[in-house]
């Protein structure tokens, strides 16, 4: 048998499935961080029993969902791509709900928009470019719509300083998606090289740059 026939030990489809399986851990941990932040915030800032009992169940539901997903991951039973995407969209819905309904500070004044960042970043590390771009755009649209609807008049007042702040937040959100997926594609290339047994890009560079011994003269 030719050595070439065995060079590719991982098919494209298998690699895509593995991406979702291995990348899930990043999404799970990002969601745990959101749950932790949300739960602490609710417990910390609630001023009445009614407020606490109204808001905490959202995090309990998210926690239950993540326990299920994390349990499946630990047991080694792969979740399909649709479930992972649906759970990630649910994250966006919950975070947008926090931005929209948080008592006292909504829209642009709500400081919990930072919860979007790890979620978008983790998603970008798992899915290919098109799906990642769609997810990032969805997050940007959800947040900017919430800000425009709830803080529209504030955005353009005072020399549009608040619009500048909103732009900054959205640009960083887009950067989370872009940079995460850029790194994801770099890693795919490295894995492909490793699977084929070809040297890494760094090795190739080093071999090109290394000073080669000159032709030895024979006495």
């Amino acid at each position, binding site marked *: *048998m030719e*050595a070439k*026939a065995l*060079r590719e030990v991982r098919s494209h489809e298998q690699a895509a499935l593995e991406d979702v399986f291995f990348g899930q851990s990043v999404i799970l941990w990002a969601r745990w961080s959101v749950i932790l932040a949300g739960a602490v915030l609710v417990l910390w800032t609630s001023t009445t029993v009614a407020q606490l009992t109204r808001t905490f169940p959202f995090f309990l539901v998210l926690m239950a969902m993540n326990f299920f997903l994390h349990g499946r991951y630990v047991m080694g039973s792969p979740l399909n791509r649709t479930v992972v995407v649906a759970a990630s969209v649910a994250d966006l819905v919950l975070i947008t709900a926090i931005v929209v309904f948080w008592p006292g500070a909504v829209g642009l004044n709500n400081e919990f928009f930072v919860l979007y960042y790890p979620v978008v970043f983790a998603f970008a590390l798992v899915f290919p470019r098109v799906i990642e771009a769609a997810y990032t755009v969805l997050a940007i649209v959800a947040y900017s719509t919430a800000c425009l609807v709830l803080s529209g008049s504030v955005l353009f007042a005072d*020399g549009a300083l608040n619009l500048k702040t909103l732009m900054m937040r959205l640009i*960083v959100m887009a950067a989370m998606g*872009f940079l995460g997926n850029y790194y994801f594609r770099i890693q795919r290339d490295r894995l492909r090289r*490793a*699977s084929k047994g070809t040297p890494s890009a760094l090795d190739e560079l080093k071999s090109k740059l290394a000073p080669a011994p000159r*032709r030895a003269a024979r006495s």
Partner: protein
Amino acid sequence: MPRDVDREREDQWFAWAMSALGGDEARARAAARAAEAVQRTGAGFATAATAARAAYADSAVSLPDRAPWDEAAAPAVDSKPHLSPDGRWFWDGFNWTASHLNKSSALAPAPVQPPPASSQGLSSWAGGATSEDLFYGQAVIVWARWILIATGLVLSFWEPQSLGLLQIQLAAIIALAFGNFYLHVQLLRGRPAIDRVVYAASAADLAVVTTLVISQNGYSSPVFVFYFAAVLGLSVAFPAVLTAMYTAAVVVVYGIVCVSTADSAEYPAVFTRLLMIAAIAVCGALFAQSEAHRRAEALAVHESASAEVTLPSSVRGPEPVPAGVG
């Protein structure tokens, strides 16, 4: 001047041995002497390289300063037929022959091991090397910094609050831009910067963001979002220990800045910001670690598969020939 020619050739072989056989100078020097001596007789590169490998291996066995606990291991090397370090060549006392032609069980190739993790941890501060993970992650850091620079530049001119603040912002952004241009050019030219330069540049990113945050009243400054892009870049590029150190530094410094400039009612928001910065770092480091394991496994699978296929039938060229030799 035959002696000068010999010395030059020996130096070339020394450089070759250091790169091809390992980083032990004494052993590489012994290998270089042997190769040079063989080549002086008119032999070609293959023979000289074989001699170099043998001398390199021999000098490992006969090192005079062997530690007491290594004494027991030494005879084991001599007790079996002499195999070259790469396992391809067998010394029968008179000639080197391809090892696959000899079916002795003592010459069975060692099982393929996954490559060691390229992450160097804290030691990468001390060396002048470029580690592989940092090489790949450096591209992410460079792009993250360009985003920071472009956004900062545009937003600086958008309703600047005061001349002094604008001066600080522009000076910091221009300094970052020059530094990033240098790093990007190095990448484009295929000359990745050494680790310490990349570490220092990332520390400069964090320092610039902190300076801007402090100059805009701490907690109320919207510029803090750039911490996320900076931490993202370093989390996928740096070893886990350094990522933890950098992130801890950001959390502590920014936490102090916020606590000293925010009302107690705003502490939950401060907590959320700090937790999310840490979450970005954890996600990046987890992913990088997971990918390193996948790569090592893929490489091991490939090497074991190709070894099974090629060893029994291959009659390859004797040795990889460095460019220009022989």
